[in-house]
């Protein structure tokens, strides 16, 4: 549970994610999706309840849990006055990534930014910066990827790239993705969590359901 003043932003949400599973968190604005993700990312302390990431209890083992998490929020979280390469090298240092030089090259190549690796991020478009943010979270090969509206600002090619990266990544690690795009969430995830006013109104495996058909149910759930 997480409370901001009198308001309970997240309350009685019970969810467990297995390795290799992708969870899509859906819900209207103010439902508590980002708050839940920020608690998992160790940025917010829960006021009550239990939270653990890969067996590390939060917040007591937060530092060890952080090494296993890759968090991408609304912003790419990279310095605008550094080059793409310098940013990734900085994060490689922070995460203690071995063979940093090769891993930085791989990550940049993976998101299609190798040719722009020596350019300042200030000169990047929003979509390019978001791709760099994706490279940043994949750099240390986290066991849990936390993505908050990762498609925001991406063009069609960028979104396609993110789909491919997520499909590849979710085989080896857990992914929690917060999105407003119901159809995309259903297509990507193996499990759905729908929040309304901080509470879970649906938590179940997606199964063989159609995204467009689920939208009608989703709208009833959050109405």
């Amino acid at each position: 549970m997480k409370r901001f003043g009198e308001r309970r932003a997240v309350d009685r949400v019970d969810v467990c994610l297995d390795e290799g599973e992708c969870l899509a968190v859906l819900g209207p604005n103010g439902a508590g999706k980002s708050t839940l993700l920020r608690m998992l990312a160790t940025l917010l302390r829960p006021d009550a309840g239990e939270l653990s990431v890969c067996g590390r209890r939060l917040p007591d083992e937060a530092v060890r849990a952080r090494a296993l998490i890759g968090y991408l929020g609304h912003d790419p979280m990279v310095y605008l006055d550094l080059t793409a390469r310098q940013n990734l090298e900085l994060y490689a240092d922070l995460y203690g990534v071995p063979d940093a030089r090769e891993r930085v090259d791989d990550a940049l190549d993976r998101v299609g930014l190798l040719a722009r690796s020596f350019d300042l991020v200030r000169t990047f478009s929003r979509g390019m910066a978001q791709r760099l943010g994706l490279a940043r979270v994949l750099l240390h090969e986290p066991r849990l990827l936390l993505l908050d509206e990762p498609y925001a600002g991406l063009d069609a090619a960028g979104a396609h790239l993110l789909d491919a990266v997520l499909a590849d990544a979710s085989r080896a690690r857990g992914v929690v993705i917060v999105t407003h795009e119901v159809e995309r969430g259903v297509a990507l995830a193996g499990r759905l969590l729908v929040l309304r006013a901080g509470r879970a109104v649906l938590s179940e495996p997606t199964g063989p359901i159609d995204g467009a058909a689920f939208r009608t149910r989703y709208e009833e759930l959050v109405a």
Partner: protein
Amino acid sequence: MVLFAILAMLIFQFAFGSRLGDLTPFAGGILWATLALTAVLGVGRSWVPEREQRVLDGILTAPVPRLVLLVSKAGAIYAYLLAVEIVAVPLLTLFFVRGQAPVDVALVAVVCLLANVGIAILGSLLACLALFARARELLLPVLFLPSMLPVVIAAAGATHAVLGGTNDLAEYRGYCLFLAVYAVIFGLVAYATYDHVFDD
């Protein structure tokens, strides 16, 4: 920031210089008033890149203990103060002090090295505290300046003891001891509270 320190000293020079013949007795106060105001600017800007470029969450989710973040910011503030002092102390001796010996300037350098520790620790702690606060531009100087006052008084006293013409080394040592104790106390306060200052 160095420019700010130079301008502040020039203002002191124009404000007092033409009216008072010898400013040597005031040199310590002028130096530390200038450095205190410059420190407020530097501490206020210590988290600006992370905040303005929205990198803070990226840094806070890295597997780095909060204490390391606090110490690294304190180190940056210390280095920044040192850079300002490298310019400010020679300017002080040029504008405001008459007949100083090189050894006196060396003793002032020791005061700077000691005072910077306390200012950097306190500044880093308060900058982290103000990180998530509203009206942080107002909050930080309001908290920082009064808390820094003991350092300013002791550092100005120690500087005056060696540059003011009295060369009172006993007084100088007393003030230096006070600066060291202040640094230790705020170091302990920072150690006891660092985990909570980054809380939401």
